[in-house]
């Protein structure tokens, strides 16, 4: 099993550009999550999904959108990138007792 995979690993955006961060898991988990982590800080929940077709906001959803058309995929969309969105983004999927995290996407908005 590959676990949770994320693409791209790195990306630089200009202010106002848009992009989609991809996340795929092969563990057949219903629950999936998106977090962001700013330097020296903990992770903050952006959005989560409890199954295909169902998504809900986390602590910091503004400026982001998600969709969940399949169990495996949970993409995160940034519509109008802003410097405040410079961060490392982690996707995770949820097992019974723990969450499994992907390797992260490092995003810089200039």
């Amino acid at each position, binding site marked *: 099993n590959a676990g949770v995979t994320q693409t791209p690993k790195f990306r630089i955006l200009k202010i106002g550009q848009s992009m989609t961060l991809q996340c795929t898991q092969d563990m057949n988990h219903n629950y999936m999550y998106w977090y962001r982590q700013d330097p020296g*800080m903990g*992770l903050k*929940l952006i959005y*989560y999904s409890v199954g295909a077709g169902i998504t809900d906001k986390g602590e910091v959803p503004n400026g982001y959108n998600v969709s969940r058309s399949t169990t495996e995929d949970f993409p995160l969309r940034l519509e109008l990138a802003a410097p405040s969105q410079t961060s490392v983004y*982690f996707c995770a999927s949820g*097992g019974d007792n723990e969450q499994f995290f992907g*390797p*992260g996407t490092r995003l810089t908005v200039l």
Partner: protein
Amino acid sequence: LAKTTQPISMDSYEGQEVNITCSHNNIATNDYITWYQQFPSQGPRFIIQGYKTKVTNEVASLFIPADRKSSTLSLPRVSLSDTAVYYCLVGVSGAGSYQLTFGKGTKLSVIP
């Protein structure tokens, strides 16, 4: 979600036992205590979870007193590879029934 408080940083020499204490005064009856480890440039990784008393696995032990208002992660005989940030989280267990709230964690530095 119950708030947790843990030390910002700790230093330890190789081979020593390290104990990281987490305070969670407002823990709810249904809440579990979970610890994650995060290395630089990687996502967090689950270490251990418990509800009460003591839990032990191959990498750590978790001690939870009867009142459950605190917990202690114990790492036996640490090595340089244990240098990481350790997060204490409190929430209802189960795949989707809890949303993890990560604080700043405890940065453990293991010294040769």
